């Protein structure tokens, strides 16, 4: 757990402590006090395993003995990183409301009208999410356009100069150095300031919406680093796009706005306090992700479907409608601001960061005969996508194992940038494919060794931002590229993009995939029209589009949302059918070999990700085998010292504790009464809600739900809470704060059943009880996520400290 060790802004040494003014309060709490304090009603921690037989206050004796025999064999051992691990770093989000007395009281106080205001606030927040996401997208677009334009002009002038005089190697050096230095800055900020901003951010958001708390993923700092990182890596000429990161940016914006405050800036606007919990925040984050997609591709419906497909496991039609609203606002904002920026204010012609351009001419139509051809392209896309993923898998594994130091990561990113420039330069240098400059819309025509008035056709592909290259491949008239150029370009770009994804820079994989696909698709179209002696329907642009869809589908394996995104980006509904077929084929073929890029990266990060359903062959497993046991329980009225000791035990970093009936007889396990969370306990300790103090009338006011919300989402670590020796002897009454109705399952419930309950309700803790309602175990996300359907049937992942 990363944030335990960190200094947190609000320290425990505050007003309450000072008021008390006790002498002994500074006595530091030692972590090692756990075993000594191991009292009644609880057994815990691997360290106390060896003595568990003596405690013997659970009636599972035979199992415990077996456990005991296994202990010597399972010494904590070190293994190299692999994909069959679950990291302890990741925790669940609390999507399930803790329905304690405070909550019920507050809900009772809110009347009908107040609920309506809450509803209106939700809409206001969605509108703001849309607007801000659109504005961020505009900012990225404009800055990238200008900086990249500047870079390409400088390099072009340099190349033009040296073409005449000789010394092109200097141009190469200039280009490579420019790229490497820009990428260095982009990589530095990511590697040293916020590593979670690396990559496209889609896996992280997927995990977040799945219910995994990725540290720092929705912080303002992450947003800033992400935006700057994207700009720098695109300007640095890497084979990346700025579309994927928009989804992450949108999510961060949504998470920030819905909370009405920024913990990083230490500003609290005192608004939207009702939404300060994981459940509400998740809904807004899914709206933010949708707004991000919508701004990136000009695809509002695609954005909504993306949220539906990739993220939100919990869905209702009002939420969908709100998310759609946010998406629409986002694309409209981007569109209007960019139109003003481009000088034609009321034109509204740029709905997304990338526009595929118009596909509505006569030649762009397709006929039924072409559909088998499209399906074949889907197969090719699936195979190439699987190859891409497999290569990237090995590369990522190597990176995790060997290139884990930030400075090495920065050096790697710089090298990739330099090599990308070099490969581009060499390709352009060697290409003899010259096209007349007249009537073409090339932004930076590079003449090099072409005749005057002509430009190097390879340069339109390499010497340009990837977005522009994609559009060129879709729309340049037939004959703009010769097959050799396209073939070489596809080959080179494939490896470059594969190499680039997973670097410590923030960058997306959408555009490179589209570009690879568009290149081979166009090549395919050209060869097709060559084979059919120039039939009218073999327009290469159309095949470039299908190739792009196939390649992207083969890499990311999205289905519904990607179809709609592509459809909206092309603005042509009739393409829906062939695109769907292509994506379907690509997914089926690709899934035969390896899984999608995002899922693969989630797995490599050892995230306990819950898929839609339990593994198919897991029916034989029951809750008894799945659960963790023994469970650390608290009594309803518990000693403060015990609570503090449990919380500060680093070896068992539990977050939820079943509350059992306080029973004076310590040898007997009492029935389950409720569930309390670590965060709640910490707030209670901080405010010193002790029975003795209440009796002495030392407590000024009753604790309200607001006190818990104010601490959300960064609850202070237990180390920052100081409890004096005297206070340790006090008692704490949990009955008011615990969730009195936690979800439970009997031991005999099968894994799929447990899984369904867990996944559908978004639980974090599921208590396993026996028939006397006594706690026998606890099922958490990691217990369920460790079962995975591998190549040889059901596999079990091991937990690891990362």
């Amino acid at each position, binding site marked *: 757990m990363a944030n335990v060790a960190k200094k947190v802004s609000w320290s425990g040494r505050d007003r309450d402590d000072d008021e008390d003014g006790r002498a002994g309060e500074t006595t530091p709490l030692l972590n090692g006090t756990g075993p000594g304090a191991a009292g009644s009603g609880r057994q815990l921690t691997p360290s106390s395993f060896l003595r568990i037989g003596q405690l013997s206050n659970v009636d599972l004796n035979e*199992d415990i003995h077996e456990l005991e025999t296994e202990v010597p064999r399972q010494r904590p051992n070190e293994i190299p990183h692999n994909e069959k691990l679950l990291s302890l770093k990741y925790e669940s989000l609390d999507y399930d409301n803790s329905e304690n007395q405070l909550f019920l009281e507050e809900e009772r106080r809110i009347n009908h009208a107040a609920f309506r205001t809450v509803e209106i606030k939700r809409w206001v927040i969605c509108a703001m999410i849309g607007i801000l996401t659109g504005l961020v997208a505009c900012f990225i677009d404009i800055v990238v356009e200008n900086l990249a334009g500047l870079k390409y002009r400088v390099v072009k002038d340099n190349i033009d100069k040296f073409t005449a005089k000789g*010394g*092109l190697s200097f141009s190469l050096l200039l280009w490579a150095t420019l790229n490497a230095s820009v990428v260095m800055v982009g990589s530095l900020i990511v590697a040293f300031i916020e590593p979670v901003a690396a990559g496209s951010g889609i896996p992280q958001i997927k995990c977040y919406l799945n219910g995994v708390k990725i540290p720092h993923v929705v912080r303002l700092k992450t947003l800033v680093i992400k935006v700057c990182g994207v700009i720098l890596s695109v300007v640095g000429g890497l084979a990346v796009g700025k579309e994927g990161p928009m989804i992450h940016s949108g999510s961060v914006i949504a998470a920030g706005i819905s909370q009405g405050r920024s913990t990083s800036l230490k500003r609290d606007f005192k608004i939207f306090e009702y939404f300060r919990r994981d459940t509400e925040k998740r809904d807004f984050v899914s709206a933010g992700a949708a707004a991000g997609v919508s701004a990136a591709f000009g695809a509002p419906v695609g954005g909504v479907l993306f949220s539906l497909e990739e993220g939100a496991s919990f869905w209702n039609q009002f939420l969908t409608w709100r998310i759609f609203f946010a998406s629409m606002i986002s694309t409209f904002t981007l569109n209007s601001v960019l139109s003003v920026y481009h000088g034609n204010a009321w034109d509204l012609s740029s709905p997304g960061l990338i526009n595929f351009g118009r596909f509505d001419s006569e030649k762009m139509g397709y006929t039924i005969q072409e559909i088998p051809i499209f399906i074949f392209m889907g197969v090719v896309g699936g195979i190439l996508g699987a190859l891409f993923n497999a290569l990237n898998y090995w590369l990522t594994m190597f990176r995790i194992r060997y290139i884990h130091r930030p400075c090495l990561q920065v050096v790697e990113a710089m090298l990739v940038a330099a090599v990308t420039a070099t490969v581009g330069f060499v390709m352009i240098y060697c290409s003899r494919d010259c096209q007349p400059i007249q009537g073409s819309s090339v932004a930076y025509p590079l003449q090099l*060794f072409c005749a005057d008035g002509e430009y190097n056709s390879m340069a339109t592909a390499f010497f340009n931002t990837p977005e522009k290259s994609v559009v060129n491949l879709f729309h340049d008239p037939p004959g703009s590229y010769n097959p050799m150029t396209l073939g070489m370009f596809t080959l080179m770009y494939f490896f470059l993009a594969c190499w680039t994804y997973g670097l410590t820079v923030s960058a997306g994989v959408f555009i490179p995939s589209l570009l690879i696909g568009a290149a081979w698709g166009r090549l395919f179209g050209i060869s097709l029209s060559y084979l059919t002696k120039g039939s009218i329907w073999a327009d290469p642009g159309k095949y470039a589009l299908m190739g792009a869809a196939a390649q992207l589908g083969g890499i990311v394996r999205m289905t519904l949302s990607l179809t709609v995104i592509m459809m909206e980006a092309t603005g042509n509904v009739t393409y829906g059918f062939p695109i769907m077929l292509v994506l379907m084929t690509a997914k089926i073929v690709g899934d035969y070999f390896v899984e999608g890029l995002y899922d693969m990266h989630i797995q490599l990060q050892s995230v306990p990700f819950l898929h839609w359903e339990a593994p198919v062959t897991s029916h034989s497993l029951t809750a008894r085998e799945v*659960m963790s046991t023994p469970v650390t329980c608290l009594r309803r009225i518990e000693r403060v010292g015990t609570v503090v000791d449990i919380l500060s035990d680093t070896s068992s970093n539990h977050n939820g504790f079943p509350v059992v009936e306080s029973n004076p007889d310590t040898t007997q396990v009492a029935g389950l009464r409720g569930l309390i969370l670590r965060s709640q306990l910490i707030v209670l300790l901080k405010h010193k809600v002790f029975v003795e103090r209440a009796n002495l009338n030392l407590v000024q006011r009753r604790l309200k739900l607001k006190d818990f919300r104010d601490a959300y989402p960064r609850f202070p670590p237990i180390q920052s809470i100081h409890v004096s020796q005297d206070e340790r002897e006090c008692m704490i009454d949990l009955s008011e704060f615990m969730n009195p109705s936690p979800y439970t399952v009997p031991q005999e419930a099968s894994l799929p059943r447990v899984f369904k309950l867990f996944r559908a309700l978004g639980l974090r803790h599921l208590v396993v009880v026996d028939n006397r309602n006594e706690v026998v175990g606890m099922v958490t996300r990691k217990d369920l996520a460790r079962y995975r359907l591998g190549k040889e049937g059901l*596999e079990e992942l091991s937990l*690891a400290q990362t």
Partner: protein
Amino acid sequence: MAPPWCPCRALLPALALALLGLAAAAGPRQTPALELAQELAEELWGAGLPGDLPELEPECRSLLAAFAEGSAALTGCLGRRARPVRLCQGCHDHYRRLLAQYGSIARAVGNSSESHNCAKSILTSDRLQIVVTLSEFFNETWEAANCANCLKNNSEGLSNSTEEFLDLFNKSLTCFEHNLQGQGIDLSPNNYTEVCKNCNETYTKLNDLYNHLQRMNRQGGESEHSAHLCIDVEDAMNITRKLWSRTFNCSLPCSDTVPVIAVSSFILFLPIVFYLSSFLHSKQKKRILILPKRIQSNANLVNIQEKYS
């Protein structure tokens, strides 16, 4: 007339024409139809319209004739100057005249109601609307050629920069010709060094001027449409460039392949070094396994474990 009448006014002549046509085809035997047409014509006359509808008014007819002649002249001019392209230089007078003629048909000149009528009967009274089609064609051609770009603002004559460019263009052509003649005609295609040497100055000047014009144009024009220079200039430059670099093979850039290969292979070599060294020297990241607290007595799980390990 009152505005609500307008659609009817547009319809009435058409109706009358149709009826008259019917009457003419049917011959004199169909007296009731003829009478009907005459009645209608009288009615129209009463509504302030001329009676002899099938006939074009004399003024209109002369306008039409002028337009026909003008368009014939312009078509001829365009056709004759298609290759090498000299459209804008040679035909801008014709075009301007045609524009004026079309304007006088369309616009109200003299007696307002009559000429309005003239415009209507020439331009919009049939499905084909040949005059409109013709004038649209010419306009589109002119736009596509982007001739406005090298004409003066009032489109009388070529602009100064264009004149300058054409001057230089002629000069370079003369230079080419001159030098080629000096060398004799049947030379091997690679042996144009004389031309390259002697005309380099003119050619460079021409090229620079063209690039300059292009840059100016791109800065001045807001929309993408005016990104092109006019077709005459573009074509002239194209011809020259093609002669220069394809036929004469003059623009031989020095290709320094060796340093480029050296530098690029150096850069391409770096990642290999990087990965190898990090593989050999960097400490492999190890994960510490945590043993889970579980009951491990079930046969199923043992099965899984076996498979797993």
